């Protein structure tokens, strides 16, 4: 029995009532398994990726309907962002999707830079790309570790978190923080990379493909993993597009939509990389697409390190960007600019802008409305997990409860982004 569907067909062919005995009698009396049972999965549950509550209506072990209930980690981030000056919003916005913090900051900074019509220097763009791709790999590591844990392959958790720790060491090197680094600022990046970062990053880029090969070797030909992933809960591309799904889920169904290629931002068009695309859109394709993306991200990082241009790491405009510290001792204007920026913050011309980027889960679009003052009037993040969660119900309808767990893992929802 190598294929899941064959097993299921054989299962359905079994007729319990024929066997005779008490069970058969009871089943014929009660009319078989037509009774629907609604149970509550979560919000506290070891298999959910965050505090997601699922009202599941089961018939036996087959899911007939599912209703996700969210809001258990709603933090009012968008409202808090309206109270803070533009650069102070960055740490708050980063904590939305807590595995893709560079992407949150990038979307927001991109939106504000569009409003300001501020040009980001080339070196800053390349540094942003390096950190964004490192963050993408890190997000995929956590996803792979926790998904494998959900499915039962516990050792991958340790291996993936080991790689993740290497990436966090790099983040700590460039910005001082492991998570939520506020490295990406309006106009560029917070600081130039220190000496030794490039060396360590290249060493990581040499390790990572080998590590990804190891993870693949553990999972790809494993019969149990294949049974849980192959042909499990596929969803076709048209339904996904109607549901607004983007990112690896859409690419797994065959649509090669990736904003890094379609609407390049921050010098992504300087790099040569491929977009992994699946065929059927089942769990296996979702896994394979994300796993293949790791290799492509490593390629991008290496190209960015090779081509890293000299230059400033942040824009020059003193009305928006803090002046370098050594100038504060000599120049009066620098001191005044520094003072104004730190106390009041910079003012942004009024307008509304929507800036989309491609994150590890799909399209992160930051909508910023400015009313001319030093605080944003509205910040909204179009979070891909929030929109992708709507695809869960069509995916798992008429499949088993165990498939729900595997599908939820492959969906990669991050409740911080969903609830904001």
């Amino acid at each position, binding site marked *: 029995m190598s294929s899941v569907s064959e097993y299921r067909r054989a299962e359905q062919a079994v007729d319990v009532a024929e066997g005779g005995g008490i069970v058969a009698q009871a089943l014929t009396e009660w009319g078989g398994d037509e009774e629907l049972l609604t149970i509550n999965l979560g919000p506290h549950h070891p298999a959910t990726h*965050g505090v997601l509550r699922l009202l599941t209506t089961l018939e036996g072990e087959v899911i007939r309907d599912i209703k996700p209930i969210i*809001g258990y*980690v709603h933090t009012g981030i968008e*409202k*808090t962002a309206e109270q803070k000056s533009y650069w102070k919003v960055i740490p708050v916005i980063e904590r939305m999707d807590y595995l893709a913090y560079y992407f949150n900051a990038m979307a927001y900074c991109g939106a504000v830079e569009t409003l300001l019509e501020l040009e980001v220097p080339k070196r800053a763009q390349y540094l942003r790309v390096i950190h964004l791709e490192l963050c993408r790999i890190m997000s995929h590591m956590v996803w792979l570790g926790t998904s494998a844990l959900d499915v039962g392959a516990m050792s991958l958790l340790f291996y993936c978190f080991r790689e993740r720790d290497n990436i966090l060491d790099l983040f700590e090197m460039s910005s001082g923080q492991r*998570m939520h680094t506020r490295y990406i600022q309006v106009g560029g990046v917070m600081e130039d990379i220190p000496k030794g970062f490039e060396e360590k990053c290249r060493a990581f880029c040499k390790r990572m493909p080998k590590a990804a090969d190891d993870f693949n070797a553990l999972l790809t030909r494993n019969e149990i993993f294949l049974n849980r992933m192959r042909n499990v809960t596929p969803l076709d591309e048209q339904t996904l597009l109607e549901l607004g799904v983007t990112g690896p889920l859409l690419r797994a169904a065959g649509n090669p939509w990736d904003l890094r290629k379609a609407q390049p931002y921050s010098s992504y068009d300087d790099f040569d990389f491929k977009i992994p695309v699946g065929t059927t859109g089942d769990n296996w394709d979702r896994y394979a697409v994300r796993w293949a993306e790791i290799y492509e991200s490593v390629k991008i990082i290496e190209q960015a390190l090779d081509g890293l241009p000299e230059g400033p790491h942040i824009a020059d405009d003193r009305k928006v960007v803090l002046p370098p510290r050594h100038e504060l001792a000599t120049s009066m204007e620098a001191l005044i600019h520094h003072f104004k920026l730190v106390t009041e913050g910079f003012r942004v011309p009024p307008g509304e802008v929507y800036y989309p980027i491609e994150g590890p889960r799909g399209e992160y679009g930051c909508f910023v409305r400015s009313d001319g003052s030093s605080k944003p009037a509205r910040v909204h993040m179009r979070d891909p997990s929030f929109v992708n969660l709507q695809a869960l119900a069509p995916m798992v309808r008429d499949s088993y409860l165990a498939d729900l767990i595997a599908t939820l893992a492959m969906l990669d929802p991050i409740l*911080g982004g969903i609830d904001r």
Partner: protein
Amino acid sequence: MEVIRQDPADFRARGIRARDALRGDLEGADLEKYVEERVLTTTLDKALNWARGNAIFPATFGLACCAIEMMTLVAGHVDIARFGAEAFRGSPRQSDLMIISGRISIKMAPIVRRIYDQMLEPKWAIAMGACSSSMGVFNNYAIVPADKFMPVDVHVPGCPPRPEAVMHGILKLRQMIQDDPAMGWRDRYAARGTEEVVGDPAAFPTAVNVLRPEEADGA
């Protein structure tokens, strides 16, 4: 904890005593000393607390970003298994430590309290990160600090705290467990008599933990 340093001369003497014990030649004062060095005598309470502190079962309670750093605790570099606490239980009934890792929204707060109530005494709680201790980066309508509705033993600051910092918090908790034998949290924090008892549960249809006057024990 103090480190007891051994005098080299004592060490030699101990070695000779050990050799004699193996040969069966040890007797009298030497035998007494031998036994004394190898047997820890203590009260049952202290022994139990020592065991409790070294075998903490945390409940998986990841809420937000701090949960990722909590998972890093389980993983290789900072290994919580060194301290005996790697068995994260899915069910609160089987765990004795709740690591509240992440921001508690107002929708989640009653559920956190319910899970804390489902844990059996003795139980402890660590508020990991700034959000659960003190609202963190956000101070707004949507979240509550954990101390508002449940007792917290150790607060670990950070946003998110490094895994080493959480480890330090867990070790501090272990020290607390080994020092302070008060089992119920109400005894630990002088909270007897603070149970909110309502007369008619029907008046509070959405309340999570509603106690009637006669059943306030074990709250």
